[in-house]
């Protein structure tokens, strides 16, 4: 099998779409009410060292993804168990994204279509794309990225005309606690979810810089989140915003430029479709890749289809209702700690130690 490559730019585009994927419609947490935008900024700053750590892991072992790294660092048995953890996380994340996706679509337009079909269509498309190789995904993402960026910038500029600046006052009314609380929520969903990319960026072209991808991806993705959050607060304001599951959709539906330029909200759905597809594809890729590595086979593609079908099956019954889905967001922030913080830390420390030791060992041999 010839080695596949993605360029630095494609990696960056993937990461940005991955970050804004579900958050675009679900909106960031409203723990801090009108200070949510401060939470976003704080979350970006909080995520920076963590993401640099992920980039370091990718950088330490060029051309090897997280599963190979785990395998090399921890040996066979422990490595497999840890890999299984990551596979579960990627798998579960995929399930959540698919469910988000179908809930949103069935709420706004396809009210009578069974969610199963919506999920299936998305997943089949994702399988098809990833089966074409990660390169296909990369190129497709680069193409879509521009469209998404234009739409989002347009929406934010138009939302600016409807903004009521009084909605941002008073600043820090509830004190700093809710801001930090909200910042952590945003850190775990979606910023630190980029841990998945430790399995993708191993396909970076030799010589490409993983730090750059993570760093820029964080700032651009976070910046878009910030713009969307500012727009939502400015246009809708509290407490109305806290009554809505899909604030961005409502915000955009309010934009009225003259009598002709209105009803843009479908653009939000389009952007979400595109970003969601990227996110689902990456999760599928990571799951299949990890499974393949655990079972010592090198072709992850053959496993894509069953993994995807399993994804959909689980997405069907993981939550009994939409309320449960949104309630889960509160659980997720704690649930994600081991996968987003503890395991990467452990891997990083052990990897550094191992590399240092083997290096000194090599020198001694000489």
């Amino acid at each position: 099998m010839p080695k596949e490559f993605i360029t630095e730019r494609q990696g960056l585009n993937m990461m940005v779409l991955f970050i804004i994927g579900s958050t675009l419609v679900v909106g960031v947490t409203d723990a801090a009410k009108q200070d949510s935008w401060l939470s976003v900024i704080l979350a970006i700053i909080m995520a920076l060292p963590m993401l640099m750590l992920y980039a370091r892991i990718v950088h330490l072992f060029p051309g090897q993804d997280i599963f190979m790294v785990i395998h090399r660092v921890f040996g066979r048995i422990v490595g497999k168990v840890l890999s299984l953890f990551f596979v579960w996380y990627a798998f579960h994340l995929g399930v959540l994204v698919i469910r988000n996706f179908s809930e949103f679509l069935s709420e706004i337009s396809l009210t009578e279509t069974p969610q199963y079909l919506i999920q299936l269509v998305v997943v089949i498309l994702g399988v098809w794309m990833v089966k074409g190789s990660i390169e296909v995904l990369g190129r497709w993402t680069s193409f879509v990225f521009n469209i998404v960026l234009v739409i989002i910038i347009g929406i934010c500029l138009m939302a600016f005309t409807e903004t009521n600046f009084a909605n941002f006052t008073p600043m820090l009314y509830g004190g700093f606690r809710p801001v930090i609380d909200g910042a952590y929520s945003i850190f775990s969903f979606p910023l630190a979810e980029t841990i998945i990319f430790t399995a993708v960026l191993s396909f970076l072209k030799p010589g490409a810089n993983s730090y750059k991808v993570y760093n820029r991806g964080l700032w651009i993705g976070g910046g878009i989140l910030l713009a969307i959050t500012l727009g939502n607060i400015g246009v809708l304001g509290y407490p109305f915003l806290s009554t809505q599951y899909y604030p961005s959709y409502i915000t955009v539906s309010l934009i009225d430029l003259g009598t002709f330029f209105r009803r843009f909200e479908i653009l939000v759905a389009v952007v979400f479709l595109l970003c969601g597809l990227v996110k689902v594809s990456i999760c599928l890729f990571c799951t299949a890749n990890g499974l393949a590595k655990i079972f010592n086979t090198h072709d992850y593609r053959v496993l894509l289809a069953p993994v995807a079908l399993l994804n959909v099956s689980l997405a069907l019954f993981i939550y009994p209702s939409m309320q449960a889905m949104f309630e889960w967001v509160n659980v997720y922030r704690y649930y994600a700690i081991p996968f987003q913080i503890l395991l990467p830390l452990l891997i990083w420390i052990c990897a550094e130690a191992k590399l240092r030791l083997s290096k000194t060992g090599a020198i001694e041999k000489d």
Partner: protein
Amino acid sequence: MILIMTLVYGLFLLLDFIPIYRGKNRKITWLYLSLFILSYSMTVLIGFGVNLPSPAPLIKSIITSLGIF
């Protein structure tokens, strides 16, 4: 509903599985089949209206029992 599911799964078997089966890699074939059957049985059960236990409440109870909330 179940009909559509079965059709989709059948399609996957036809288009996806047969080349793999011919690849004569036993391990992959078994892995594929086991995942496949697992997901198919889950969807069929859901289609028949069986309430499958979701992992979400379990994870939630684990986290709550850790006392972080």
